[in-house]
């Protein structure tokens, strides 16, 4: 596991613990806890666990299977969004347009589907359009030389606006996500008598089950995507060159890394994952909501997940696994606050405070792990 979660090799080497050479740092000989902490995302793992333990002590409903299912839609979409964003952030860039892709792709999917194209091809075309937008983001950043913050902010507004224009601002039902209800007679035994009662059962199609409506659908998408992208980041030339560009752009270029190509490719990936989440969420909810403010909130949570998970805004360092744990932490916070019965008006307030407190703890855990005080 350590070699998978280790991300860039600096931490991989510390966690792997092989070889007779003297250890470069003092902590990494001290057993399993120190090993977890030596991972880049180690400290946030500890913070997430502490948060989960707190809520399970405070509320009896937290550690239940049912609650795990309610937790899923909080963190699975964020995980996928943050996983793509990590690839851009390691470059030292940022992609704000994921909010727009999240909004735009289900609307485009709806338009294509109602124009008579069948479901899966509609999804594919919508995602290809998102990838094209990503390529444009990458072009503006890597070739034209506009700061990615500004370029993707422009694209965020442009495509949120375009989403409102083509949807006329009206919510629609997601194609392929229709719910069919059937009634079945279920046998019950009451006082030794067998009686039959009618119950209503909801059905969704196979397409919807795969693309977000199934209970574990988004979760499985998230796990598969995290696995693939973390593998790409740690064990392929693409991942290595991504870290190289973020760490030393000039040096990477001198060594022959094609900075422009990798930058464009990572923006394409980021837009693709955002577009996919948009469709998954629309299918899960059963409706497409042209709501830019909701999309912007998702955008902030996704970037927060990546940063909380240890990805540096300055680039050169980060992991996809960290993004997953960051999203999980945010999901636990939201879900736990709801279970505690926090007044809806206070929820955001507490959420904000909890993030600040947790991140402060995180910094101190990191310092302890490094064995000195320079954070």
């Amino acid at each position, binding site marked *: 596991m350590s070699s998978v979660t280790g991300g860039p*090799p600096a931490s991989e080497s510390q966690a792997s613990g092989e070889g007779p050479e003297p250890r470069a740092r003092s902590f990494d000989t001290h057993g399993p806890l120190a090993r977890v902490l030596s991972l880049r995302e180690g400290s946030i793992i500890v913070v997430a666990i502490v948060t989960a333990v707190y809520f399970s002590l405070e509320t009896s409903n937290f550690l239940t299977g049912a609650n795990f299912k309610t937790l899923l839609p909080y963190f699975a979409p964020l995980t996928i969004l943050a996983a793509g964003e990590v690839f851009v952030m390691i470059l030292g860039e940022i992609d704000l347009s994921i909010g727009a892709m999240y909004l735009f792709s289900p609307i485009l999917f709806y338009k294509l589907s109602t124009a008579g194209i069948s479901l899966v091809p509609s999804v594919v075309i919508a995602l290809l359009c998102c990838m094209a937008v990503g390529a444009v983001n990458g072009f503006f950043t890597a070739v034209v030389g506009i700061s990615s913050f500004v370029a993707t902010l422009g694209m965020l507004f442009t495509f949120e606006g375009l989403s409102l224009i083509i949807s006329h601002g009206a919510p629609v039902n997601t194609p392929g996500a229709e719910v069919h209800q059937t009634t079945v007679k279920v046998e019950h035994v009451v006082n030794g008598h067998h009686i039959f009662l009618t119950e209503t059962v909801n059905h969704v199609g196979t397409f919807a089950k795969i693309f977000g409506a199934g209970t574990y659908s988004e979760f499985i998408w998230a796990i598969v995507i995290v696995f693939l992208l973390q593998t790409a980041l740690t064990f*392929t030339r693409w991942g290595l060159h991504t*870290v*190289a560009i973020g760490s030393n752009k000039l040096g990477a270029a001198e*060594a022959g*890394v094609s900075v422009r190509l990798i930058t464009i490719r990572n923006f394409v990936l980021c837009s693709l994952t955002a577009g996919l989440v948009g469709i998954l969420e629309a299918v899960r909810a059963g409706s497409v909501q042209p709501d830019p403010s909701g999309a912007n909130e998702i955008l902030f949570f996704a970037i927060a997940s990546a940063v909380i998970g240890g990805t540096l805004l300055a680039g050169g360092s980060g992991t996809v696994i960290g993004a997953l744990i960051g999203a999980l932490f945010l999901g636990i916070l939201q879900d736990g606050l709801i279970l505690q019965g926090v007044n809806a008006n206070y929820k955001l307030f507490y959420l904000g405070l909890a993030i600040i407190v947790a991140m402060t703890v995180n910094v101190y855990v990191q310092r302890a792990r490094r064995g000195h005080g320079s954070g």
Partner: protein
Amino acid sequence: MAVADAQPIETVVPPTSAPDDVLRVEHISKRFGPVTALRDVNLHLRKGEVLGLLGDNGSGKSTLIKTISGFQKQDSGEMFLHGEPYRPRGVDDARSQGIDTVFQDLALIDELSVYHNMFLCREHVHHPIPLLANRRMKRETRTALDEIGINIPRIDVAVARLSGGQRQAIAVARTVNSDADILLLDEPLAAMGAKEGSMILDLVARLKAEGRVSIIMILHNYVHVLQACDRVSMIQDGVITLDKPTNETSVEELTEIVVNEYRRAREQERSERQAQG
């Protein structure tokens, strides 16, 4: 950097060539906005030769190296590799044609391990799934570093943790370890202690004895130049002003040229100031 309308230096080396040239550079010029880095550079490199390139800060040495290495394009002039026109489209392209470079800033990635840096852009991957062949890269890195004789205890640590000399050694080892037959070394001894420096010079001597590769090396220390190089070229104000076999020159002559150049530049500055005043 040289000023565009600087007075021409008296002795400018014209294009010269030898029958066994692997690389020829003719009439290369390069400007960066108002600054002319290279005015008219002529240079040739024979097979198996070690050419020392001398010059003050801002004389255009690094610009010349970056042009040959494919990192940037010249404004005018031509380069020839083994007699054929040589127009690299990038560092990768130059490398595929057999020219590999140690840049002045070393082009190392702090976040990556020693062995990933050694194989940056030349990574070994498995087949058919192209995952990094880390074990093979570690093994070959260890062998390469041992051959050079550089002591780097752990090759799986990030290069950020290594000393300046160790980092430089890795950058040199990376280039020497490539399949290139022309090596460009931009100040390969800059951050090194005496021991590490002599190790690199030994390495260069060994490569010279093997005769497979040809080397252009930027150095600051004249003693090193006379010790390690077959021939020395001096670049001043964007032109080559001296081209001599090292056994026909001396530290004294090289020093004199530089001092004269310094005097000339000061006089010119003074006359310009008078003209303005």
